[in-house]
């Protein structure tokens, strides 16, 4: 072999080692449920996904991956996923850094399917990346549970193998509008400024007509390119239009910069709700600019979905409680979980339940099981559309709304302000 080829192979190997990750739980010695004897057959369950170890989605994607890792850890400690025929599936997770880039996602999901021979896929984080992964998964007939993608459009293409755990984007800001009008019915003018990616556009596509149907006047309606850092042009328009409320945003980095710029420019809107950024703990790094900002969230620590709530809906409860998840997460990662973390764990739970129900990793049996899923976990209710056009779209999960508020100690804290049964504080108008 030529030296150059050896060097090239070595470099590729190093890059793969640096970018990828494989979590193979130790099966030996793991306790089995109920203390039963060792199972007749133990098989590896190969699960693949990409995450954003670099790039714009790094923070939220890391949280999602941590949630998946915790799920793998707990399944492993419980002795694996036990099927009806006695087979035990031990999860083996393979993941690579997608750099927050759609082209990398498509390459890597192809690699996961063709080279790594994964049995089932989980999704990357963010709707654009999920959309890219979904196309590859669908083409190859691989079931993919999506945690980090809320975009409606992806789930309205008639895919048969993709299942969405998150509430779809169309529900993100409509609830915020309800909350806003409950808080202050005199609000009349609203500005909508959003990122022009598929997720944010799907959110706004639903929110704008909803706002208008509630009698609100949309006085600014502008989109900004992904990667925008200078919000001055938008804020000058907002100031000139003097809206009572501002809704929009996109993801963590731009949403944080937008909120910071609103404060710097002394924008006096009474209500601000932004996508994705506010529920992340790092949003508080912008200090006073975070105060009173509302954010839709898929899950928050104080929201307790439990067996009683499931019973009230006449559906089963599956998996651990919210408290157990939160304490296990803190113990493993030494930080509080965000909704992205919970989404990652919940995707694992839904997959686990479907495998147990299907009794097989066969995609057709897995799909049949997922199609009839109607269950409550600590993350909330999960049920998928079985309509041909919207197959796999989430239809039962509810959103939670948080608001950053300064406590009497002067410290910022994310308070749950909606739904009312889970609220930790009353929602407030900006001051």
């Amino acid at each position, binding site marked *: 072999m030529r030296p150059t080829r050896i060097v090239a192979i070595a470099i590729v190997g190093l890059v793969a080692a640096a970018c990828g990750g494989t979590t193979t739980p130790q099966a030996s010695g793991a306790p089995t449920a109920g203390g039963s004897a060792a199972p007749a057959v133990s098989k590896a369950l190969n699960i693949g996904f990409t995450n954003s*170890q670099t790039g714009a989605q790094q923070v939220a994607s890391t949280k999602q991956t941590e949630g998946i890792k915790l799920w793998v850890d707990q399944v492993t400690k419980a002795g694996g996923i036990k099927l009806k025929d006695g087979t035990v599936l031990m999860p083996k997770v393979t993941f690579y850094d997608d750099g927050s880039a759609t082209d990398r996602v498509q390459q890597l999901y192809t690699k996961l399917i063709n080279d790594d021979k994964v049995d089932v896929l989980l999704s990357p984080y963010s709707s654009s990346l999920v959309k890219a992964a979904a196309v590859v998964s669908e083409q190859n007939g691989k079931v993919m549970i999506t945690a980090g993608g809320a975009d409606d459009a992806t789930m309205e293409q008639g895919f048969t193998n993709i299942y969405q755990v998150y509430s779809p984007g169309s529900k993100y800001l409509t609830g915020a509008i309800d909350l806003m009008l409950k808080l202050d019915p005199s609000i009349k003018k609203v500005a909508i400024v959003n990122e022009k990616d598929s997720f944010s556009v799907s959110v706004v596509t639903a929110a704008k007509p909803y706002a208008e149907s509630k009698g609100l006047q949309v006085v600014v309606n502008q989109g900004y390119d992904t990667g925008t850092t200078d919000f*001055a042009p938008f804020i000058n328009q907002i*100031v*000139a239009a003097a809206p009572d409320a501002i809704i929009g945003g996109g993801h963590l980095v731009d949403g944080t910069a937008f909120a910071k710029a609103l404060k*710097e420019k002394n924008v006096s809107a009474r209500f601000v709700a932004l996508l994705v950024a506010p529920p992340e703990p790092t949003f508080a790094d912008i200090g006073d600019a975070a105060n009173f900002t509302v954010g839709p969230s898929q899950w928050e620590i104080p929201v307790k979905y439990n067996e009683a709530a499931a019973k009230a809906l006449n559906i089963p409860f599956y998996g651990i409680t919210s408290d157990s998840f939160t304490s296990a997460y803190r113990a493993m990662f030494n930080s509080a979980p965000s909704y992205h973390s919970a989404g990652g764990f919940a995707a694992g739970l839904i997959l686990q339940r479907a495998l147990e129900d299907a009794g097989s990793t066969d995609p057709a049996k897995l799909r049949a099981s997922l199609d009839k899923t109607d269950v409550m976990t600590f993350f909330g209710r999960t049920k998928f559309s079985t309509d041909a056009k919207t197959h796999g779209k989430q239809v039962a999960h509810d959103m939670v709304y948080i608001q950053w508020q300064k406590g009497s100690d002067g410290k910022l804290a994310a308070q749950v302000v909606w739904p009312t049964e889970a609220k930790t504080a009353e929602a407030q108008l900006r001051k």
Partner: protein
Amino acid sequence: MSLEALIPSAIDGLMLGFVYGLAAMGLTLIFGVMRVINLSHGPVIALGMFVVYTLFTGPLGVNPYLGIVAALVIGLAFGVVEYFVALDRVINAPELTTLLATFSVNLMIIGIATSVFTTTPRAVDVSLGSVGIGNVTVLGTHAVAVLVAIVVAAGLYGLLFRTRVGKSIRAVANNRAAAELMGIDSRRMLALAFGIGTSLAMVSGALLSTLFPFNPLSGTGYEVKSFVIVVLGGLGNPTGALLGGIVIGLLEGVTTVFIPVSWVPVLEYVIFILILLVRPAGLLGARA
């Protein structure tokens, strides 16, 4: 469309235009002196951002505005080294050769920077308050960026037109052979000019780091904008570049009042093509 937004948008655009102009001055100085189209300009702007970021977030917690001074010095040294490593041996070759040489440096900087810093967005958390008059709010960070840009541009003008070194650089730019006959070390002057141009790019990046979040790829957008500005102001003309930067900044600010923000780059490139077609020498004419 809201005319109430016109004045604040114009002021914001104007202020940003000074920083654009500073970045473009570096690009046009290098072209004016040595006829090199410097494609490492964008990554160098990003390096300026990371100089400030690294010093600010490091153990010493260096004030971002002191970091700008560091960026100026590091930029000068980096440019001189880059000249001797990548350009010195091909400086008399056709322009395509030097263009490819700087493109190689571009790829190397981006490769190393993305490996070291990743593409995760960073920010230098600095706030200098704001001053509000009516619906116009001027941020302290933007005002300081304008002041620094003016001081650096004036410093460049003083260096080029009030010092012996500047006179030598201009002499090399006008006629390298004649300058050498007069005893000027043209090689040293070319290296110095490249260092100054690189330093200007790094300072503009350092200033931008105090205004917006960034990553190692952030320089690309400013590099492309610099080319538009350089053509608008006149190739090789630093004063024209500063003026061009102000015009583009103002244009960005004002047009967003009338058209969606996404259309602004389209308008900029239409102007770019029109200038090339109608007045290829730019607003002030091409000169060193």
